[in-house]
């Protein structure tokens, strides 16, 4: 108790309640902290965060809101770029290079690399993220855009229990 009474949180609140802006700041951090902790207890938070890692969230606002939640080196993420178009089931049946780990956001191996070596046929990307037994699989297509440059299209995402 003595330890806690010397914490900045205790000292701050013992000086009086925070003003409006500080209260908002505390509230925002509290919500983000509860959301992060929800990974341990709430399956919906796990699913939403796995989808965030694959940019497979149902809407941009939902993704945008989650982006202020710290997720450094979260989950076991793997990703591969490949020239062939196969189903997620076929891809998972193959024996992959086990070293294709990503600290977070494995989809960046399509969005965060120098694309000058990619041919006109484009590429496919296959991604897998796991957290406490829950596993999300996603397939992406990197295809030439009619305006020049590239379009990054999410083809499908499936949790492991949805794979045939």
């Amino acid at each position, binding site marked *: 108790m003595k330890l806690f009474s010397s914490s900045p949180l205790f000292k701050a609140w013992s000086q009086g309640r925070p003003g409006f802006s500080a209260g908002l700041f505390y509230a925002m951090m509290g919500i*983000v902290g509860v959301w992060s902790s929800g990974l341990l207890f709430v399956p919906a938070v796990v699913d939403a965060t796995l989808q965030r890692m694959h940019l497979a969230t149902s809407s941009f606002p939902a993704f945008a809101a989650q982006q202020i939640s710290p997720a450094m080196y979260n989950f076991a993420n793997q990703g591969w770029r490949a020239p062939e178009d196969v189903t997620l089931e076929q891809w998972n049946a193959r024996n992959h290079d086990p070293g294709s780990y990503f600290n977070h956001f494995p989809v960046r191996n399509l969005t*965060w690399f120098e694309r000058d070596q990619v041919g006109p046929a484009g590429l496919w990307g296959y991604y897998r993220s796991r957290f406490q037994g829950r596993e999300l699989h996603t397939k992406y297509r990197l295809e030439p855009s009619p305006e020049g440059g590239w379009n*990054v299209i999410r083809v499908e995402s499936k949790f492991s229990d949805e794979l045939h």
Partner: protein
Amino acid sequence: MNSIKSAAENPRLMAWRIALGISLFAWFVKSKDQINLFFQGPDHAIRHHTLLPDWLCSPVVGGVAYFTPVLCFLALRAHRAVWLRLAGLTYAACSLVMLWHVQSYNDATHLTAFYLGLWLAWWAGRVERTDAGSYWHGIALAIGIISLCWLGGGIGKLTSEYWAGEPFYHLYFMDKSQFPFSWMRAHLNQETIHTYAQWFSRTVVVVELVLATGILWPPRWAITASILALSGMVMISQLQLFSVLGSLMGLALAVGWLLKSEPNSTTTPT
């Protein structure tokens, strides 16, 4: 508009400058990579992503959001609260755009900078005060940000793969080309390296979760432990993580500076 005493006379202003200065340095340390990625030319740019609005695929939007914080360097010489607040809000807004942009959503540099920018904007309105309330709320919010980042990092690693050391084994022990990982690969067998990776990974998870409780510790303990851990991570990553951790180091050092000048009074609201 309020004019503030010089930083030499005002530890709160100096703390504000320390936090921003270190964070900006960290933000721009990877400029070469960012320029290469944002300006690959129209033939290599991403035009469209299934999830993101097209304006968040624009290299121009990304370039503006990345380089606008250059202006925040000017605030390091500012003495008016309005400029300090504007710099903080600008930094937070640019960080948020970077967190959403197709070329930079994956870089946690912008997440730590976002929280630092909000703290700078909030603290800007308190740098001319002398009351204990705003002083301790400023410290609590700063340490709270650091704790929140440890929490998010630690909880997401509570999975069997991290406990077995698998991601770190591949990401660091197999892929990193620098010492000590290159030395290990040259002198140790795979099984031994795997064991080291496992214990390294477990240590990281435990340390992050322990440091997440730093908001409940005496502030000197919390920032000392965080600075030691952040420095260790920066050294192990050969400065690659400095851009991400710079904002947290800036906050911790700003708190350290503030702790040298604890006020006695209890007055105005925050």
